[in-house]
C-alpha cells in the first residue's frame, strides 16, 4: 500500500514528474544515440573493406597505406613496380590480387585504375559486393564506372563523356582522351562512392603522350593508335590480396615485407583500421563525454525537482510520520521515487532511441552511408541504463537526507 501511495503521490505531481522523466529520457536517448552512431561509425569504418586479407604498397606507414589505398586520402610516396606486382601475384598462396593505380582525378574525385577483378573481390560491410545501379562495369578501354556520390554531385548519367585530369586538383586535363561513363555504382557508404574507376590500361593510355607531368609538345597520339598499343603499366600504387587460406596471411605478409628487390609493405586491413580508429577515436570520446554530461545534468535537474517538492510535501511527510512511519521510510520513499523516475526515463529514452532509429535509419544510410543496426540493447547499453538508475538513487540521497532531518525536527507537527 505504501508502494501504491508513493505511486499516487508521483501521479499527483504528474507535470513536474513528467518533465523530469522527459529530461532523463532525452538525455538517455541522446547518450544511447551517440553510442549507436559511434559504434555504427566504427562498424561502417571497419566495413569499408572486407574480404581483403592484405594490402600491398610501397614501404611507408600502415595507416598511410590504408588511407591512400582504401580511403583515397593523401598520396602514395612511391609506387610498386609491375615486376614486383607480378612476382607477388605468381606466389602460390595468393588466391587473387587486384592492382590499384591512383594519382589522377576528375573534378574533386579521385580516379582509380584497376582491373575487372576489383568488382569481383572488393567487398564492404561484411562481404557485400559492388553492384551497378545503372549500366555495366567497364568493358571498353575508355569506359569509366563512377561511384554514387560522383554521379549525384556531378549529375552524370550512363553514356556521358568524362575527362580525367592528371594529378590531383590539377588544371591540366587529359582532354584529348575522353572517357565514357559505362556504369554507376550503388551507394555503399565507402570511399568507392567518391571514386571514378577506370581500367589499369586506361590510366596508361591517358599518359601515352605525357612525360614528366606535362604534355609533350607537338605530340598527340590518336585514340586508334592508343587502342593498338600494349598498355602494360610500369607501376601500380597498391594491390589488394586475397590468400588461399587465412593461415597463410602472416607468412605472405612477412614474405612481402622482406621482399628484397623493392621495399614493400603489406598490411592487414583490419589491424590498420584499428590503428586509424585509435587516432579518429579521440573525437568519439569527446562526444561521449558531452552526452554523459547531459545525463548528469538531467539527474541534477531531478535532484532539484525533488528538493523543491520537499517543502510542498512537508505535510505529506508529517502525516506519514504521525501514522508511525520512520524517518528512514521517508528516505526510502524519496529514493524509490527517484529510482522510479529515472527507470521510467531510461525506458522512455530507450523507446525514443528505437523510434528515432526506425525513422532515421534509412535517411542516415543514404545521406552518410552510415548503417545503424536496429537490434536489442547491447549489454553495454543495459549497463548505461542501470548506471543512470543507480546514479539517480545516489543523487536522490541528498534531498532524502534533508527530508530525513526535517522529518525528525518537524516530527508530526507541521504548522502550515
Amino acid at each position, binding site marked *: 500500500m505504501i508502494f501504491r501511495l508513493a505511486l499516487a503521490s508521483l501521479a499527483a505531481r504528474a507535470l513536474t514528474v513528467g518533465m523530469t522523466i522527459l529530461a532523463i529520457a532525452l538525455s538517455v536517448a541522446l547518450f544511447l544515440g551517440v553510442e549507436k552512431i559511434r559504434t555504427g561509425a566504427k562498424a561502417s569504418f571497419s566495413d569499408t573493406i572486407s574480404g581483403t586479407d592484405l594490402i600491398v604498397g610501397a614501404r611507408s606507414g600502415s595507416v598511410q597505406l590504408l588511407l591512400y589505398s582504401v580511403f583515397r586520402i593523401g598520396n602514395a610516396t612511391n609506387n610498386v613496380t609491375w615486376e614486383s606486382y607480378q612476382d607477388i601475384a605468381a606466389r602460390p598462396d595468393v588466391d587473387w590480387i587486384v592492382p590499384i593505380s591512383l594519382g589522377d582525378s576528375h573534378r574533386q574525385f579521385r580516379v582509380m585504375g584497376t582491373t575487372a577483378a576489383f568488382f569481383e573481390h572488393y567487398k564492404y560491410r561484411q562481404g557485400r559486393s559492388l553492384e551497378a545501379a545503372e549500366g555495366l562495369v567497364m568493358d571498353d578501354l575508355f569506359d569509366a564506372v563512377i561511384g554514387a556520390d560522383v554521379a549525384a554531385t556531378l549529375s552524370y548519367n550512363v553514356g556521358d563523356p568524362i575527362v580525367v585530369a592528371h594529378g590531383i586538383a590539377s588544371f591540366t586535363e587529359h582532354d584529348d582522351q575522353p572517357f565514357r561513363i559505362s556504369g554507376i555504382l550503388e551507394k555503399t557508404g565507402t570511399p568507392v562512392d567518391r571514386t571514378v574507376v577506370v581500367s589499369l590500361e586506361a590510366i596508361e593510355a591517358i599518359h601515352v603522350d605525357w612525360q614528366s607531368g606535362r604534355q609533350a609538345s607537338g605530340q598527340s597520339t590518336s585514340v586508334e593508335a592508343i587502342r593498338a598499343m600494349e598498355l602494360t603499366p610500369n607501376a601500380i600504387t597498391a594491390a589488394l590480396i586475397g590468400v588461399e587460406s587465412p593461415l597463410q596471411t602472416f607468412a605472405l605478409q612477412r614474405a612481402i615485407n622482406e621482399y628484397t628487390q623493392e621495399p614493400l609493405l603489406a598490411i592487414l586491413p583490419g589491424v590498420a583500421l584499428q590503428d586509424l580508429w585509435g587516432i579518429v577515436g579521440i573525437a568519439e570520446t569527446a562526444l561521449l563525454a558531452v552526452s554523459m554530461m547531459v545525463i548528469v545534468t538531467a539527474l541534477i535537474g531531478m535532484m532539484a525537482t525533488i528538493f523543491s517538492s520537499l517543502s510542498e510535501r512537508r505535510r505529506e511527510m508529517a502525516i506519514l510520520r504521525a501514522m*508511525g*512511519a520512520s524517518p528512514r521510510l521517508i528516505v526510502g520513499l524519496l529514493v524509490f521515487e527517484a529510482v522510479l523516475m529515472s527507470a521510467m526515463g531510461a525506458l522512455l529514452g530507450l523507446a525514443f532511441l528505437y523510434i528515432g532509429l526506425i525513422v532515421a535509419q534509412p535517411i542516415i544510410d543514404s545521406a552518410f552511408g552510415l548503417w545503424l543496426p536496429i537490434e536489442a540493447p547491447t549489454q553495454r547499453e543495459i549497463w548505461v541504463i542501470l548506471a543512470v538508475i543507480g546514479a539517480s538513487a545516489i543523487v536522490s540521497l541528498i534531498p532524502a537526507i534533508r527530508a530525513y532531518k526535517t522529518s525528525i525536527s518537524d516530527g508530526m507537527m507541521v504548522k502550515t
Partner: protein
Amino acid sequence: MRSKWSATPPYSTCGIYIEVTQPILNISGVQFHWPGRTGFSLSVPEFSIEAGETVLLLGESGSGKSTLLSLICGTIRPDTGTIHISETEISALTRGARDRFRAEQIGVIFQQFNLLPFGTVLDNILLPLQFAPERRKRAGNIRAQAKDLCKNLGLPSAIVAVKSNALSVGQQQRVAVARALIGQPPLIIADEPTSALDADNQAAFLDLLFQQTLANNSSLLMVSHDPRLSERFDRVIRMDDIAHIDRATI
C-alpha cells in the same frame, strides 16, 4: 455519564495485560529543549490521563502544546524525566521503537490537512495499520472496519473509494477520526481538530468524536485554545497549570 472505570478491554503490549486502573498516560519530571533553537524549553513536572478519560488541554499558541504532543507521540524525546503510555516507558525507547509504538497505540488527528490528498479515503484510514501489525490484527477485517467507522461517523460507506482531495474539510476531519480510531488504539490525540470547521460542524464533529471514542474505549487528549468546548470533557487542564516554558534569550 461516562465512568472513568468502565471496563477497558485488555491491551496487549509485549504480552502483558494492562490493569484498567493504570493511567494511560503519565508524564513525570519531563524537561525538554529544542536542540539548536535558542531559548525554548519546556518542563512538565507531572501530568496523567486515566484510561478511558477525556481531557481537554487549553493553551494559546506558543504555550508549548505542540512540543508536548510531540513528546507524547514520541517523535521527540525528553532530556530528563519519563513518559509512560500504557505501561511502556516510551522515553526509554529507541526512535524506531517509538515510531512503532506510536503507530500501535496512538491515534492522531490534526487541525486540518490530515489526509494524503492523492490517496483514497480507504488508503488514508488504513495508513497507520501499515506500521502497526498488532493494531492491524486487532482491527480484524480492516476494510469492513473502515466502512463501519465511516458509517458511524455519518459518512456514506461508499466514500472509502473516493479520493481524499475530493472531500470537504468536515468530511476530511471525520475521515481523520476514523483513521485515528481504527484498530482501537488506547489513546487518541487531537490537535485542535475543530478549528477548521464552522460552529455547526464543530458540534456535530465533537458529538461523533466523543461517541466513537467512547465506543472504542479509548482515552482522548484534545488540545485547543477554545474554552467553550470544556463542558464535554471529563477534565479540563490549562497548559500553564501543568507546564512551564522558559524562553531565555541567550
